């Protein structure tokens, strides 16, 4: 069953920093929820195809037409930080 170490590992995968208290509460709550989910194991699904989507859709295409994109200034206006005509982000590549 899910333990504190797994919860912290999953939080890392999800890029969410959890406080110690949150991690502890989530461990208890997720354990309870996952125990409830155990009932699914009773069902034999060996020959059942999974459903990811209810509509019988495949490869929806549209015309490849040139269209106006959103105005740059309107899109930049909602960025938390910007410089000139760019969104400003933290450095990704370390300098040597």
């Amino acid at each position, binding site marked *: 069953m899910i333990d504190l170490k797994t919860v912290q590992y999953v939080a890392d995968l999800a*890029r969410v920093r959890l406080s110690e208290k949150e991690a502890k509460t*989530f461990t208890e709550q997720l354990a309870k929820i996952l125990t409830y*989910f155990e009932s699914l194991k009773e069902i034999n699904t060996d020959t059942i195809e999974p*459903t990811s989507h*209810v509509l019988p859709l495949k490869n929806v295409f549209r015309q490849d037409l040139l269209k106006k994109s959103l105005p740059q200034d309107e899109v930049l*206006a909602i960025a938390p930080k910007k410089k000139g005509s760019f969104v400003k982000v*933290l450095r990704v590549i370390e300098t040597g």
Partner: protein
Amino acid sequence: MEPFRQTAHALIKLLEEKKTSTKEIHDALRERVAKVDPSIHAFISLDGDSETPSSISEGLLHGIPIAVKDNICVKGRLTTCCSKILAGFRPPYHATVIERLIGAGSFPLGRTNMDEFAFGSSTETSCYGITRNPWDKERIPGGSSGGSAAAVAADLAIWALGSDTGGSIRQPASLCGVVGLKPTYGRVSRYGLIAFASSLDQIGPVTKDVEDCALLLNVIAGHDERDSTSAERPLPDFRLSLKNDIRGLRIGVPKEYFAEGLDGEVETSVRQAIDTLKRLGGEIKEISLPHSRHVVAVYYLVATAEASSNLARFDGVQYGFRDEAGDLLSTYAQTRAKGFGTEAKRRIMLGTYALSSGYYDAYYLKAQKVRTLIKKDFDEAFTHCDCLIGPVSPTAAFRIGEKINDPLAMYLSDIYTIPVNLAGIPAMSIPCGFTKDALPIGLHLLARPFAEETLFRVAYTFEQNTEFHERKPDVK
């Protein structure tokens, strides 16, 4: 005449007869919201007068405004999913439904409160605080579209848009005594609806009566090339199915929906509603949906898996809230730690776990397979039924704070509504009674994919022959 008490179709008639004006309606609504909403908190913001250009009043809807759930993008207006992580977010485009409403002569009145990212059944997880049920202010309005349902119930809005991923339109509609419809998956474009679970989400109407529901679906439904899952299907005029006649219609009553956990008063009202439909000529038969017991498990695996993936985009880079913390990875983790509320984090955790290496087959894949079985149960039922009927929610509105610290108890309150989203079928909640404490009870109607017309016919017939929809909460 108090314009805010009217339905949209009644107002359209009054406007055409020049007995009221668009301005009179706007002013009455604003005044009503200013007076009443402080004790309800259905709205988190109102749009200014600048949003009501006179040109808009020319269309079919004559400038009758609509309340909009805070997860539907309105260009230039704060749209935040009631989450701190979208603080200050003003979308650079309209959702398709908003474009269509504006095209038809409506416009957004304001944003309604909701559970953060629609994660909840009580509207208690909003970063803006709770919404109170107009029928009893110590109780929740349901969720996640609790603000939309409370606004319509308290006559703070003529009608509203909500979104429904697992019952988020129908359950609050039921708990607030109004009409709510989750259309067939693919009936309404999801473009501009901030995604929760992409295979389950649908936008739909919250209205005071069935006719308004049909009128609103007429405006918002239809294919949209910007949503590749929106269906290319002929679009009927849904008002034509508003017929007071259900003779010969085969109505199935799933026995699993009347099992343990259903409140006695809710059961009594729903059984009386079934008797009413029988008296009106419906052919009632008991049926079985054998996999009903597993719907909560399947839903909370599928929905949280999809949500954890959809919410990965909120990283503080291009829009919304950012909290910088040294390097890039720490900035992501800190931004998300401070930006998301507890329930959002819990669902991201559950979904990430279900999708993670080593657990994918046991949880996510297993849930998708059982989803197939749940859908097959409905396919089988609809080979010999035109419509299914049951309760919307196992209880009437519960007390504020009652379930907020027990996530599993909260999840279980969605047991009747979530199979509908898993199967992609349309379903509706209409008022069918009250508890002895005067809390509304809703009747759940389910139909085949793209058979909203059947829902309208049954709902309209029931409404024409009962008076539950006429009772209003006493809010001052």
